């Protein structure tokens, strides 16, 4: 009898410790790892961009076709003034679980940054650095600024966060369903989970491309407002 009680209490202590450790892992450690991973991604992008020469003028034959995005590699950096001045996240190609641990993920089938169509990006709302924690605070008119190393793209939010179901893939269509956009354009879609710690729904925000400027012309005003 004593042995059974002892074994049971040891099992309880072990389970409790395991759960505690797991909570520490999810709430704290994934954030630490995401911080290190995104710093690495931002560094890689900065070095890559520093190495390439920004074309001062387009050649007469038109710009060369852009390099296709590489799965899991960084392609842009996103800034959202509403989320704070220090909010700076790399956007990587693809939305696989491993990719989303290192930054935001661009839906591969959707348009390239700044192109006609819909540039759709997914990000964690909680855990792994909480990048999209404040998505519900976005309001129409808010700026979402991205750079690919040669151009600044300023998008403006058009809708309040829209709640939908996970299977609603129409929200990342070139002309997103339920967005209110009537025709083709240069759109941006953010997707994250809803409710905050759950997975029953998704939260969607749409924006349209408002302005572009070459990086040589300096930071867009939207970043400092």
């Amino acid at each position, binding site marked *: 009898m004593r042995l059974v009680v002892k074994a049971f209490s040891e099992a309880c202590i072990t389970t409790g410790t395991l759960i505690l450790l797991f909570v520490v*892992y999810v709430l704290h450690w*994934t954030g630490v790892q995401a911080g290190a991973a995104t710093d690495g991604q931002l560094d890689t992008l900065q070095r890559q961009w520093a190495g390439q020469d920004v074309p001062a003028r387009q050649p007469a034959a038109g710009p060369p076709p852009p390099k296709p995005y590489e799965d899991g590699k960084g392609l842009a950096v996103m800034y959202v003034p509403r989320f704070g001045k220090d909010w700076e996240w790399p956007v990587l190609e693809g939305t696989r679980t491993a990719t989303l641990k290192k930054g935001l993920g661009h*839906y591969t089938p959707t348009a390239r940054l700044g192109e006609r169509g819909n540039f759709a990006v997914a*990000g964690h709302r909680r855990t792994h650095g909480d990048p999209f924690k404040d998505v519900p605070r976005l309001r129409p008119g808010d700026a979402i600024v991205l750079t690919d190393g040669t151009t600044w793209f300023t998008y403006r939010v058009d809708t309040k966060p829209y709640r939908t179901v*996970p299977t609603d893939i129409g929200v990342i269509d070139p002309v997103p369903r339920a967005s209110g956009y009537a025709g083709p354009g240069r759109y941006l879609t953010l*997707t994250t989970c809803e409710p905050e*710690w759950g997975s029953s729904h998704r939260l969607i925000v749409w924006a349209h491309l408002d302005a572009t400027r070459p990086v040589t012309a300096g930071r867009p005003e939207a970043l400092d407002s």
Partner: protein
Amino acid sequence: MYGWIWRHLPGNAWVKALTSLVLALAVVYVLFQYVFPWAEPLLPFNDVTVDGQ
């Protein structure tokens, strides 16, 4: 279980304590490095995409 491990560790109490500490750290390392990253996607925090699945 813990009593059994303690009795079967070699050396005096100090060596046993040190070995236990190293063992505990090793377990935590394995959990954080392999077990938790495997278990976490099974929880709902990772579902942030619309994918029709």
